């Protein structure tokens, strides 16, 4: 039986220096929808997100067991090479992290390292993905200025364009609006609602209202355990677990 979901997690356990951070997580992320991972701070949301593209291994204390299947390939199988998996997933961090180069080179960086050398095609790609991220109009006359001159909201959209330029299937967002002002946050949220037509989006947030605005599917984590997951309407309006109900109504946080 071939399962077509881009991303599946089976019995995932993670610990940091033998302190458990995630316990027995199993989850199938629906394609071309926005899946929002909610839960209080320190419950393992970011850890779960990092386990999807193997960035967890940057931390020497992290240990992992179980499977993460990306397009039916277990990314933690011995000998799996991480770069082609990471390529399938764009990452938006809490704080935008532009590269120390020009706006143009930031977007062109991904295509370049994956072999695109043709200048005209690179120019076309940069324009296309900056438009996708709604940044083109603001930067089209200063593409060769350093990325650091942009405002933080613009930088986050630049990071989105940079991520899209490597043609991922999945977009991972680790509280991607938490450093932004409300107006910039709104623009990013609107972007996600458009992008979900073509990408599978997974967002981590601790802002419940944001989760309600964006989510098609919700996973609720608490103390490293996946308490409940399901379509947003069900989880928000008819939660099955008492803990979910309390979290959503604001009794626990």
């Amino acid at each position, binding site marked *: 039986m071939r399962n077509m979901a881009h991303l599946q997690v089976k019995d995932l356990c993670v610990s940091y220096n033998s302190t458990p951070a995630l316990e027995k997580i199993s989850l199938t992320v629906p394609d071309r929808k926005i899946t929002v991972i909610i839960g209080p701070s320190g419950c393992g949301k970011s850890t779960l997100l990092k386990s999807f593209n193997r960035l967890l291994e940057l931390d020497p204390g992290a240990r992992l067991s179980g499977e993460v299947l990306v397009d039916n390939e277990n990314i933690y199988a011995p000998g799996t090479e*991480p770069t082609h998996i*990471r390529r399938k997933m764009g990452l938006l961090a809490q704080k935008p*992290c532009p590269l120390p180069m020009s706006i143009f080179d930031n977007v062109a960086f*991904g295509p370049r390292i994956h072999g695109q050398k043709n200048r005209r095609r690179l120019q076309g790609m940069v324009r296309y993905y900056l438009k996708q991220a709604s940044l083109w109009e603001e930067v089209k006359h200063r593409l060769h200025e350093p990325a650091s001159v942009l405002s933080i909201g613009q930088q986050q959209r630049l990071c989105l364009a940079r991520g899209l330029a490597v043609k991922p299937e999945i977009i991972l967002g680790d509280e991607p609006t938490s450093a932004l002002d409300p107006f910039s946050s709104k623009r990013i949220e609107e972007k996600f609602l458009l992008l979900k037509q073509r990408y599978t989006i997974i967002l981590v947030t601790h802002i419940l209202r944001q989760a309600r605005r964006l989510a098609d599917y919700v996973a609720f984590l608490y103390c490293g355990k996946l308490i409940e997951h399901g379509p947003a309407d069900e989880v928000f309006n008819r939660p099955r677990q008492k803990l979910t109900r309390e979290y959503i109504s604001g009794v626990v946080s």
Partner: protein
Amino acid sequence: MLKEKLIKNIMRLCAFMLAGLLVFIIGVILVKGFTALKLSMLIETPRGGFYLGGEGGILNAIVGSLCIAAGATAIALLVSLPVVLYLNVHAKRHSGLAEAIRFAFDVLWGIPSIVYGAFGFSCMVFLGLKASLLAGILVIALVEIPVLARAVDEVVRFVPADLQSAVLSLGATNGEVAWKVMVRQVFPGVLTAMLLAFGRGIGDAAAVLFTAGFSDYIPRSLFEPVATLPLAIFFQLGSPFPAVQDRAFASALILTILVLVVSVSARLFSKKLARYRVHNL
């Protein structure tokens, strides 16, 4: 309140003393050296009896010191940069191996340069080589490597892990993280570190004493002995003639100005290069 004021004033006093010491040192060298400084010192090599008060200059030592310090800094960079990038990108930043290598650099930094000189000399004896420019460059490179590696390491460690995550998530390899992104971000800091190493290299007398030797000529190849400014100062200061001793201060003035010129120009240069650096990480 009173106690805080007292402590603040003590700290202020220390700061003024430190600044005063710098002014004092430069003042002494200026006063004693400026009178003995002549153009001929800069553009001539020593003639017969120079160290007894004869005519000539120390161009040989100026050229020698610049060649040794520049060559050694280049070699030290070629060795340290890959090591540091490996430590911070490929090896996990705080793994046991990385910490062990850092500890090794700290120990190497602490070893007096005369020990490097003696080590270099015994290697040369073993290989049957004579004192030469090349040997001087290699031994000064050894002196500079720990300085440069530790200084660059501090700069690279300051780069947040987020930058590495961001680049890796685009499907980049660790090599691409290191050589296409990290290097750009840390370049201004690396330049400052090179300056520190250059300063240590050009001022070192003990390590070149046995390995570079001394001569009255500008060397025509890497295999000839070469004069250096610290040793030129040493020999002139050891002379019984006051006129030659004054020339030692003039030489010290030249050495100080050289270091100042290099450091100021590198700073201006690095400001230009810092244009693309990302600040708000």
